[in-house]
């Protein structure tokens, strides 16, 4: 298992505030990593750096041995990095099936894919993704008729369809009921069987359900890293993030 992502000495400043401070962070191929940290620790900023939406002041990001630090977001997406935002992002009036179809390849040109004839292979792949995210029975429904949880699952399906090597999931269970969160965590675990996944999540039930290795960011640096039990036992992590343990 080789290293897929390396963040080296990454620093970024916004309006005079240092958000990431010489951050070093790496992930192996096919790893599922949970990223924790106080609000404002730099988690979302790190994701925005990896996807190219923000550029760092210094440091670099290597992905599959290529330096992607200065690449455009589009080029980074094409090379296999996909991001899921907290709020689901999809084509509201297209059907569930069509949303997956336009995401089938990394080149998301919606009109091109709506206009073209699908191969049998493409169709099979769309149906297998719809079954994977358990929305096959709603394939013909417009996306805007789905429940909040179903929309989150559809977006995960759209991400898988673009065939990424690395998925960055920023609080994908936001606003869900506890059962919805549990089901989403199961889906993420299944996705992680064939993908590298970096998950930002505050809900410790989810973290406990899926975590293998956990990284805790604080003030733009790695405060702790290791198994969930090691991290939960860490005094500094308890002080800045977990509290007395009532909601851990």
């Amino acid at each position, binding site marked *: 298992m080789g290293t897929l992502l390396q963040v080296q000495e990454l620093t970024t400043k916004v309006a005079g505030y240092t958000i990431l401070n010489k951050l070093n962070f790496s992930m192996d191929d096919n790893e599922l990593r949970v990223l924790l940290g106080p609000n404002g620790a730099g988690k979302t900023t790190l994701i925005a750096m990896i996807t190219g939406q923000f550029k760092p002041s210094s440091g670099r990001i290597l992905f599959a041995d290529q330096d992607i630090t200065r690449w455009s977001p589009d080029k980074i997406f094409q090379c296999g990095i996909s991001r899921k935002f907290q709020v689901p992002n999809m084509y509201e009036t297209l059907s569930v099936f069509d949303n997956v179809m336009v995401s089938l390849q990394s080149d998301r040109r919606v009109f091109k894919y709506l206009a073209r004839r699908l191969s049998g292979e493409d169709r099979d792949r769309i149906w297998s993704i719809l079954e994977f995210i358990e929305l096959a029975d709603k394939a013909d429904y417009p996306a805007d008729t789905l429940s909040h949880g179903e929309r989150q699952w559809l977006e995960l399906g759209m991400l898988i369809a673009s065939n990424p090597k690395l998925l960055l999931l920023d609080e994908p269970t936001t606003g869900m009921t506890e059962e919805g969160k549990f*089901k989403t965590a199961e889906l993420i675990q299944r996705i992680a069987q064939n993908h590298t996944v970096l998950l930002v999540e505050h809900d410790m039930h989810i973290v406990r359900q899926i975590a293998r290795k956990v990284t805790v960011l604080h003030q733009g640096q790695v405060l702790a890293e290791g198994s969930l039990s090691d991290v939960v036992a860490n005094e500094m992590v308890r002080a800045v993030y977990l509290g007395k343990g009532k909601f851990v």
Partner: protein
Amino acid sequence: MLQVRAIDTFYGTSHILHRVSFEIQDGEIYAVLGRNGAGKTTLMRSITGINPPRAGSIVLDGVDVTGLKSHKRTHLGISYVPQGREIIPDITVAENIELALIGKGERRNGIPDFVFDYFPAIRDLLGRKGGVLSGGQQQQLSVARALVQSPKLLLLDEPTEGLQPSVVEEIVSIIKRIHAERNCAVLLVEQNLEFVRDVTQRFAIIDTGRIVAQGDIGDLTDEVVRTQLSV
């Protein structure tokens, strides 16, 4: 102190709430639970007057507020902490709080001291723009902004969403203090069941715009959760 009687609320032509009724007693902490899209936030917006009901009534301390505008309801003692907090990003923390005081119809006598007692961190943030605060800081500001209006009824829409465990603990202790010290009833919409069981006395579950279960918080068993709140 609050009586919601058979309200029907619509968004355009969509009928969201169907004859919803419940009551909150003086100083009580009451939770409304439900799946996403069940109508919980619409219920909050009906009570605040942002999206008033077309039928039924809402009575606060014996006063029928059903036909009143939002700011009139604020004057009578209803304050709202919306989901997403809705901090005004381009003005300072102090100005966010002062606006709430003006909204209550009070002169600008400065920020009351109890704000710094409940939220010590706010003192150091007063000059910062609302938009640069972290999620936890925004939530504290949002609750502080509601509290300076001296509400009789505080509406909190998913106050723990997106917050780290230690900040959730802080929110719990603040809600308990508000309840104990300020004789303020709290209506809470929340998905975090541990949080709900910790701070509330009674609950209602809403499903597709109808109340399908209600009772004391001890009645919120795993079986009720499984049957009424599963996706």
